[in-house]
C-alpha cells in the first residue's frame, strides 16, 4: 500500500487529490444551495481558454487558467444581473465561448494540438509539476479562507437573495465572490479530474451527503468526507488497476451517491415508522422532495 508513496509523481498527485477532495465539496454545497450546480462546469470550459492561453504564451497554464476563469466568473455574474439573461443561458454562453476560445488558441500554438488539451479536459494528475502543487495549495488556502470569513453571509445569500438584501448584505459583491471562489476551485481540481468533470466533484458529494442529513453543516461535513474518500480512493485504485484517475474518482463518487440514496431512503423510512418526529398533519412538502408547500392554498 505504501509503495505508491515511493513515487514522487504520486506524492504530488496525492497532495492534489486531498486538496481537491477537501475544497470542492465545500464550495459545492453553496453552489447547490444557490441552484448554480452547473456554474463549475461553465467556469471549467472558460478555464480551458486560459489553459490554451498559457500554452500559447508559454506561461503556466494553471496561472492563466486561474486568471481567465476568474474573469469569466465575474463576467457571468454581470451578464446574469445586467442583461436579464437567466442563469442557465448565461452558463451556456460560457460553455461555448470557453470551448471555442480554447480550441482556437491551441490551434495558434506551435507544436500543440487539440490532443494537448485532452490532458486538461480529462485530467492528468500524474503529470502535476511541483510548481503546480504550490499554486494549488495557495488557491486552496485562499478558497477555504474566503468561505470561513464569508460563510455566514453566503449561507443567507444562497438561501434567499432578497432576505440578504433586506439584511443590508452586499449582495452583488457576495455573488461575485462566490463565483470567483468557484472559479479558483475549478482550477484547483482541473489537473486532477479535468475541466469536463470538475463540477462532478463539486456536486456529487453534496448530492450524496444531503440524502443522509437534515442540516447544512452536516451536509457540508459529510460531503467533504465523501469528496476525500472518492479522490483518494479513486487515485489509489487507478494507480493499481491502471485506470484513468479522473474518471475513476468521479465514478467512485457516483457509487457513493447511489449507496447514499438507498441508505437515506431506509433511514427515512425507519424514523418515520418510529415516529420520533411525527410529520406535521398539514403539509405540502413531503420529506423526500425538495420543493416547499403550495403557496396558493391553505389546505393541500
Amino acid at each position, binding site marked *: 500500500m505504501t509503495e505508491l508513496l515511493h513515487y514522487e509523481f504520486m506524492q504530488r498527485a496525492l497532495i492534489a487529490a486531498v486538496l481537491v477532495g477537501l475544497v470542492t465539496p465545500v464550495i459545492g454545497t453553496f453552489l447547490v444551495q444557490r*441552484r448554480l450546480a452547473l456554474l463549475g462546469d461553465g467556469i471549467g470550459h472558460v478555464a480551458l481558454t486560459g489553459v490554451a492561453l498559457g500554452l500559447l504564451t508559454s506561461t503556466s497554464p494553471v496561472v492563466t487558467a486561474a486568471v481567465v476563469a476568474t474573469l469569466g466568473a465575474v463576467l457571468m455574474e454581470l451578464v*446574469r444581473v445586467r442583461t436579464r439573461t437567466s442563469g442557465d443561458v448565461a452558463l451556456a454562453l460560457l460553455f461555448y465561448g470557453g470551448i471555442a476560445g480554447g480550441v482556437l488558441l491551441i490551434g495558434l500554438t506551435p507544436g500543440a494540438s487539440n490532443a494537448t488539451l485532452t490532458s486538461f479536459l480529462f485530467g492528468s494528475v500524474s503529470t502535476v509539476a511541483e510548481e503546480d502543487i504550490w499554486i494549488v495549495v495557495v488557491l486552496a488556502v485562499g478558497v477555504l479562507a474566503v468561505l470561513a*470569513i464569508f460563510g455566514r*453571509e453566503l449561507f443567507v445569500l*444562497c438561501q434567499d*437573495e432578497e432576505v440578504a438584501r433586506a*439584511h443590508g448584505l452586499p449582495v452583488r459583491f457576495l455573488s461575485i465572490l462566490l463565483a470567483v471562489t468557484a472559479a479558483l476551485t475549478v482550477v484547483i481540481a482541473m489537473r486532477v479530474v479535468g475541466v469536463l468533470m470538475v463540477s462532478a466533484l463539486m456536486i456529487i458529494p453534496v448530492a450524496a451527503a444531503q440524502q443522509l442529513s437534515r442540516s447544512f453543516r452536516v451536509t457540508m461535513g459529510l460531503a467533504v468526507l465523501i469528496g476525500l474518500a472518492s479522490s483518494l480512493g479513486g487515485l489509489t485504485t487507478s494507480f493499481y488497476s491502471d485506470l484513468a484517475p479522473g474518471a475513476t474518482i468521479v465514478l467512485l463518487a457516483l457509487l457513493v451517491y447511489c449507496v447514499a440514496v438507498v441508505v437515506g431512503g431506509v433511514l427515512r423510512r425507519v424514523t418515520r415508522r418510529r415516529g420520533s418526529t411525527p410529520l406535521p398533519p398539514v403539509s405540502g412538502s413531503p420529506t423526500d422532495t425538495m420543493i*416547499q408547500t403550495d403557496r396558493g392554498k391553505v389546505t393541500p
Partner: protein
Amino acid sequence: MSAQFTGEGDHTPDAPPAFQAIDAHAAYDGVPVLNGVDLRIPSGQTMAVLGPNGSGKSTLMRAMLGIVPLTSGEIRIHGTPLRRFRDWKRIGYVPQRLTAGGAVPATVREIVASGQVARRRRLSLSTKADRAAVDDALAAVDLSDRAGDAVRELSGGQQQRVLIARALAGRPDTFVMDEPMAGVDAENQRALARAIARLREQGSTVVLVLHELGPLENVIERAVVLEHGRAVHDGAPPEADGECARPGHEHQHPHPDPNDPDPRVAPTDAHTEIVRLEVPHRD
C-alpha cells in the same frame, strides 16, 4: 447604533419615523407600479398595508427595504436615507415564504440563527447571548422542539413561524412582514397573531403587507390601503367586509406567483404569465 441594543422600541417622542416614503414611484419594465406614495410609519406602530393583487403593496414594502429600486422619490429608514442606512440589525424582514434555498437541507435552528447575520462580525463564533436569542426566538413561535428538524419537513404554517423566528433572532425593533398569513392554516394563523401581538406590546414597529386582516384585526392599529399604486385609505383598519374578511376564513389565493409583483390590473388567469415575466432579480 448602541451595542446594547435590546430590541425595545424607540419611544422618545421625537424619534424619526421607522419608515418614510416620500412621493415614491417604482416601475417594472416601464410599467408604473407605485405612483407617488407618501407614507410615514412612526416608530412603535403596528400597521398593515392592504390592497388587492397588483395594487403595489408588495412593491412598496420591497422598495422600503431597498429590494426594489425607486424610479423617483425617497425612502428613509429611521430617519436615514435608504442608501446611507447601515443599521440593518434593527430591521427584521419576514419574506412571504421560505424559498428553501436549493436542495441542501437546513435545520430550523440553522435558518433561525442566520437571522443574526447583520449583527455578527465576520469570523466570530456564536456567543452565549447569540444562542440564547435563537432559543428565545424559537420559543416565541413554539418551535423549540423542532429546532433540529429539517425545515422542509415542516408544514407551510410552521415554515412561516420559522421565518418569523429568524427575524426575531436578530433582535430587531422594526419588523417588515410580507403576507405572513398567506397559505397558513387557521391554527398557525392564530399562533402568528399572538407572536405579532407580543411584538406590539414590546413596542416594536411592525409593518405587515396583508391580503386581508383576518385574525390580525385586533392587533393592527392603522391600515393603509393601496390601489393602483396610490394610497386610497389611511387610518383605522377598514371594517370587515363580507365572508373573506372574517377571521379564520380560509382564503384561496388566486395568484399563483408568491411575489405578487403588481401589474396594475386585477388578477385574471391570463395575466399570471405576465406576472412571472416581470419579476426582476429572480433566477
